[in-house]
């Protein structure tokens, strides 16, 4: 027996122990019960696949689901090689485990990219073990057997054995090290539109999101946090809170005061009666106008380039026609429909957290750190997320819930109100960009410079300038400088990250340069994408499908954008009508080359989804006054609604290139496509979001 097999066994023992040790398993929803059943827990063929004696196939999805289709797409990769009956598949989210690598989480639209080969291998390994078990039982060579639809077939005799009847024996066999994977031409599942596995539970209210977790003896909590970022509690009076019906206790934690009660509502009622004196700290001096001015000042100061091609300064100085423009975007909240929440239960020697999180590994890390336990004593239960969009890439709300739980000996669910969620987010950074550009005597862009100022996060200058710095065009003279200014407003990843604001800046300004030179915006892009065949093909496809160049009625216009992010290429052409100072986006054509596609139906969903998310950035922004967020709920932070959603036509470029991401592919391109279309319709250039009526004439 190989060392590899021994390793797998030790993993299985650890896994079964963790499950068996979790005594509350019996209270949890149906989807957890299968692996909690020790009769089938031994049938685990590897970290991803468990075949029940009853032929059910449980796939352990080590990523997380926030709507992007990961549960379905990863199941398709596993099932492609496992040759199982699709109708017998169930899925579970496992805990954090080294078997799934050093990091578990969903960021950067990377789930397919990081699983495309490994999960097919896992499926193939499990299939080979089932075939080997059948061959042993028949006493034939495994080459005489093949697998199909959850059965192994003896090709000589046509006898069959079900996966369920083989699972226990298969689980005792060594895991084969080398398995051949199908050629893509043989795929039966991958690349074909397939219904989402999570749909039925989402149409009858039965699927459990993080906020729906219920445990025996569980109590409910809300936290009052300092309205000013970075502030802290100076003193508080909880006498009226404690007199509120249903309130059980009040506890000060590191970032505020928690009210614990017998219902979420009672906790909210009790919280309203708290009197807190805050030490507001220095961010209380900061408001949006000053913040934007500090960005403008920083950008005007100049500095070393983060990327430079040719000699932009000289080319600008000597050009026949120059243009300059300033673009700005505000802070943006993520506002997923499920507000932040986390349920935690901390005991002396162990802890559990139930979290709707994009970040299982960091969730365990923060929970362990907050309770002073080793990470292996903390179990993270990944819950379905009611949207994430990057907000649930932060783990602040998990650490906070653990802090509250430390004051209790029972589980506690900490729920954020919408106001908490909107005013204590980690926002898309407000950003400022000053451009200069020049066209040559023939009208083609010849020089382009950008100065970008915003608060750095993630990859710093790289993240803060992505979308402009790494634009795909071969403009001969190009330079970008970047200025980090930190006014103390927390910023983080917002669906498509730096691309979301920077592609608005860059793709709009490229349009300005095209018009300055009297050129068609598609023609300019075509010229400077000549060495990028994938983007060029997507551009031609989008232009053809969108009838680019075909006249439109007065007040209507088309705008184009080109984006390369997360390993994918998208070209969008938006068609808008502007009447009485109001914009209506009538139609969006999106050509996407995201390499090999796992589920084209989910690709189309995610393109429409990314567009809807990006469109909301045209409507609303977060503003800061005295260190506080001025918006509190959807009446002040409006988002795209049913009657504003354009018809989205998705055209996938067939490709067997390595898969790209899709969840964030379409978000950056919609704002510039729409604003370029507004220019085409009205001659008005939108350089600041959200769009104000005065921007339209």
């Amino acid at each position, binding site marked *: 027996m190989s060392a590899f097999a021994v390793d797998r066994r030790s993993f299985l023992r650890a896994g079964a122990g963790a499950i068996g040790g979790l005594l509350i398993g019996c209270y949890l929803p149906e989807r957890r019960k299968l692996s909690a059943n020790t009769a089938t827990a031994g049938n685990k063929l590897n970290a991803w696949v468990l075949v029940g004696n009853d032929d059910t196939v449980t796939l352990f999805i080590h990523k997380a*689901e*926030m*709507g992007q289709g990961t549960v379905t797409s990863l199941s398709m990769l596993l099932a492609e090689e496992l040759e199982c009956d699709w109708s017998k598949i169930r899925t579970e989210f496992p805990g954090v485990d080294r078997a799934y690598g050093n990091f578990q989480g969903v960021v950067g639209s990377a789930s397919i990219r990081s699983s495309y080969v490994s999960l097919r291998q896992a499926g193939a390994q499990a299939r080979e073990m089932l075939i080997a078990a059948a061959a042993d039982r028949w006493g034939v060579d495994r080459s005489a057997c093949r697998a199909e639809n959850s059965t192994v077939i003896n090709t000589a005799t046509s006898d069959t054995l079900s996966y369920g009847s083989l699972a226990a024996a298969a689980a005792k066999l060594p895991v084969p090290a080398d398995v051949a994977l199908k050629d893509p031409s043989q795929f039966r599942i991958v690349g074909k539109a397939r*219904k*989402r596995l*999570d*749909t*039925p*539970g*989402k*149409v*009858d*209210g*039965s*699927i*459990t*999101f993080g*906020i*729906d977790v*219920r445990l025996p003896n569980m109590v*409910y909590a809300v936290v009052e946090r300092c309205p000013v970022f970075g502030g802290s509690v100076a003193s508080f009076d909880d006498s009226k809170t404690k007199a509120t*019906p*249903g309130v059980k206790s009040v506890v000060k934690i590191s970032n505020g005061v928690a009210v614990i009660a017998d*219902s*979420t*509502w*009672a906790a*909210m009622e009790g919280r309203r009666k708290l009197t807190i004196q805050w030490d507001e700290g220095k961010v209380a001096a900061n408001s949006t106008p000053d913040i934007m001015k500090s960005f403008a000042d920083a950008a005007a100061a100049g500095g070393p380039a983060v990327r430079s091609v040719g000699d932009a300064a000289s080319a600008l100085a000597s050009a026949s026609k120059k243009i300059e423009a300033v673009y700005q975007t505000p802070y943006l909240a993520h*506002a*997923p*429909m*499920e*507000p932040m929440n986390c349920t935690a239960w901390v005991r002396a020697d162990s802890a559990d957290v139930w979290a709707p999180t994009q970040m299982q590994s960091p969730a365990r890390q923060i929970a362990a750190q907050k309770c002073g336990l080793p990470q292996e004593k903390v179990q993270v239960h990944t819950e379905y*997320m*009611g*949207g*994430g*969009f990057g907000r649930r890439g932060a783990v602040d709300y998990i650490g906070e819930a653990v802090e509250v739980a430390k004051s209790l000996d029972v589980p506690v669910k900490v*729920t954020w*109100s*919408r*106001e908490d969620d909107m005013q204590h987010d980690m926002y898309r950074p407000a950003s400022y960009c000053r451009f200069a550009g020049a066209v040559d005597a023939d009208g083609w862009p010849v020089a382009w410079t950008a100065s970008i100022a915003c608060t750095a996060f993630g990859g710093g200058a790289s993240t803060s300038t992505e979308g402009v710095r790494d634009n795909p065009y071969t403009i001969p003279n190009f330079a970008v400088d970047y200025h980090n200014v930190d006014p103390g407003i927390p910023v983080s990843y917002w669906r498509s990250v730096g691309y979301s604001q920077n592609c608005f800046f860059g793709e709009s300004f490229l349009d300005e340069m095209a018009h300055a030179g009297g050129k068609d915006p598609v023609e300019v892009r075509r010229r400077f994408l000549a060495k990028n065949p994938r983007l060029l093909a997507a551009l031609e496809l989008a232009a053809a499908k969108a009838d680019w160049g075909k006249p439109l009625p007065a007040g209507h216009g088309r705008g184009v954008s080109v984006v390369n992010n997360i390993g994918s290429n998208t070209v969008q052409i938006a068609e808008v009508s502007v009447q009485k100072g109001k914009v209506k986006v009538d139609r969006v054509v999106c050509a996407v080359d995201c390499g090999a596609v796992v589920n084209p*139906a989910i690709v189309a*969903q995610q393109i*429409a*989804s*990314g*567009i*809807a*998310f990006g469109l909301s950035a045209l409507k609303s922004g977060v503003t800061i006054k005295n260190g506080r967020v001025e918006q509190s*709920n*959807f*009446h002040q932070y409006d*988002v*795209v*609604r*049913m*009657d504003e*959603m354009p018809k*989205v036509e998705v055209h996938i470029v067939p490709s067997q290139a390595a898969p790209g991401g899709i969840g964030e592919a379409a978000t950056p391109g919609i704002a510039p496509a729409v604003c370029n279309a507004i220019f085409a319709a009205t001659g008005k250039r939108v350089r600041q979001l959200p769009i104000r009526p005065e921007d339209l004439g």
Partner: protein
Amino acid sequence: MAVVKFTLNGKGQTLDAVPAMPLLWILRDTLGMTGTKFGCGMSLCGACTVHIDGQPVRSCVTPISAVAGKKVTTIEGLSPDRTHPIQKAWIEMDVPQCGYCQSGQIMTAAALLAKTANPTDADIDEAMRNNICRCGTYEDMRRAMHRAAEIKRAGGAQ
């Protein structure tokens, strides 16, 4: 505290509650029926939509005292087995993404379909524009709404 009697998904319900407590939190925290979602608490997003005497109502701003003697239907009671035409159409069109707003969307859509057998796009806009979806499933919902009307006309359940 006061005793409130009402009908919940066809069954009599009696409970002792603070009269001002919203129906949403009675459903979710007191009764453990978590299909109805909390989204905004101010009747701004529609995630908490239920039917009271057949009308779509925001349970987050409906005090339990206002429910006395009424018939409440939640997503759990729309059909026993996902066979309401709206549910059938939503499954057929694979509408949900994250799914969090969908209970409220479906309850709003079901109320529209109950009073308008063949809703136009304008009817759909009017009925559904106050139900927010951050994943952008709007066009899929619109298609599914039309499909649900077809299913209902063809004699689907209810």
